[in-house]
């Protein structure tokens, strides 16, 4: 059973961080939908509601998303629906249901770095920075490779540029976790391909991305890049699919998402 012995609602980030690091089992509370299933025994639960971190706004060429913005906010926000082919909105729209997405926060979703995360895969092909209270700003891809450290994710900063992007997730049933999710983006002939729910955490298919960026986007080259992505990434087996199936899916879906990006380009 999920238990919280004490509760704190700090007014300042500084205070929140202080409480967080005071004891090992002090924990930041996101929406709690996942936390509740963890059966964790939390010392002091830290609620960030008073810090006004639930914004999504444009700021000096960046889209800035506060940690307490809900997934549903990402889905419906006009700014995000327009930017990058709307992939952030799309990436979250099939997660359980509207009510769930109204409760789950962006901060918790990113900070937890779940392997199954659809959002991380989409964020990874954009120019996304994570801003931590203590750790400062860093690219999302660096954040994902860092070991878990106690910190507070304050906001995400995404460079607002002309990047075209596409996202898709492959699910056994519509409201299930993904068997695999794929995001592809293109800016100034540079391509980025990310694959998540392998079932491990989302990663960028570096070699495939490079190969695609260097070629002429012929059907053969696209096919080849998709194959490189499937070959260079590692896949695992869980109840949703075997490693071999994920690898095969990866090739098909990467190809399709590249085509999808090219489609939006021509439009």
């Amino acid at each position: 059973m999920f238990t919280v012995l004490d509760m704190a609602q700090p007014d300042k980030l500084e205070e929140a961080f202080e409480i967080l690091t005071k004891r090992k089992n002090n924990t930041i509370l996101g929406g709690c939908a996942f936390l509740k299933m963890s059966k964790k025994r939390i010392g002091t639960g830290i609620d960030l509601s008073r810090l006004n971190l639930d914004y999504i706004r444009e700021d000096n060429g960046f889209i800035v998303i506060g940690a307490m913005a809900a997934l549903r906010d990402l889905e419906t926000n006009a700014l995000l629906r327009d930017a990058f082919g709307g992939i952030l909105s799309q990436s979250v729209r099939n997660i359980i249901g509207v009510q769930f997405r109204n409760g789950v926060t962006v901060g918790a979703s990113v900070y937890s770095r779940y392997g199954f995360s659809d959002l991380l895969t989409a964020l990874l092909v954009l120019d996304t920075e994570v801003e931590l209270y203590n750790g400062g700003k860093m690219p999302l891809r660096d954040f994902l490779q860092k070991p878990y450290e106690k910190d507070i994710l304050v906001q995400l900063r995404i460079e607002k540029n002309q990047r075209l992007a596409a996202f898709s997730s492959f699910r056994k049933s519509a409201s299930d976790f993904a068997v695999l999710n794929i995001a592809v983006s293109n800016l100034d002939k540079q391509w980025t391909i990310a694959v998540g729910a392998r079932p491990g955490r989302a990663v960028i298919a570096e070699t495939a991305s490079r190969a695609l960026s260097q070629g002429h986007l012929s059907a053969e080259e696209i096919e080849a890049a998709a194959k490189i992505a499937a070959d260079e990434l590692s896949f695992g087996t869980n109840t949703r699919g075997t490693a071999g199936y994920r690898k095969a899916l990866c090739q098909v879906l990467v190809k399709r998402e590249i085509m999808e990006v090219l489609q939006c380009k021509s439009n």
Partner: protein
Amino acid sequence: MQIELTVNDKLVTWDVENDEFLADTLRAHGFLSVKKACDTSCCGLCTVWMDGKPILSCSILAMRAHGKKITTIEGVSQAAEEFARILTAEGAEQCGFCSPGFIMNVLAMKNELDNPTEDEIIHYLTGNLCRCTGYMGQLRAVKTYLGVA
């Protein structure tokens, strides 16, 4: 801890535990329309509104409702009954256990979406599971209710 909130337009002060979830608080205070069915935040039966938005009351800590406006089906009885009449005319409430949460999400959708398409309706209501009806009768009822049939 003590929280102050508005439940169905009435200001209340309740004592809640740190790790108490809103659905349990509401039931303990007699709002028995609030049902729970999954323990894993994915069935939609416990749907109520927080500041007008549909949420899973089983997964929101009660203390988060402090200063908020909570609405259960008891608080929107007129609209709920209007839709429930259409739903029952289809026979699509069946066991009825998922109906209050479903109705709260239908009413939230009506407030949020203008003239939704069938796909948009289905998408908005995906988080409400039902094991009895097979969903078709619910869809007929929603379309009739929204006048998009």
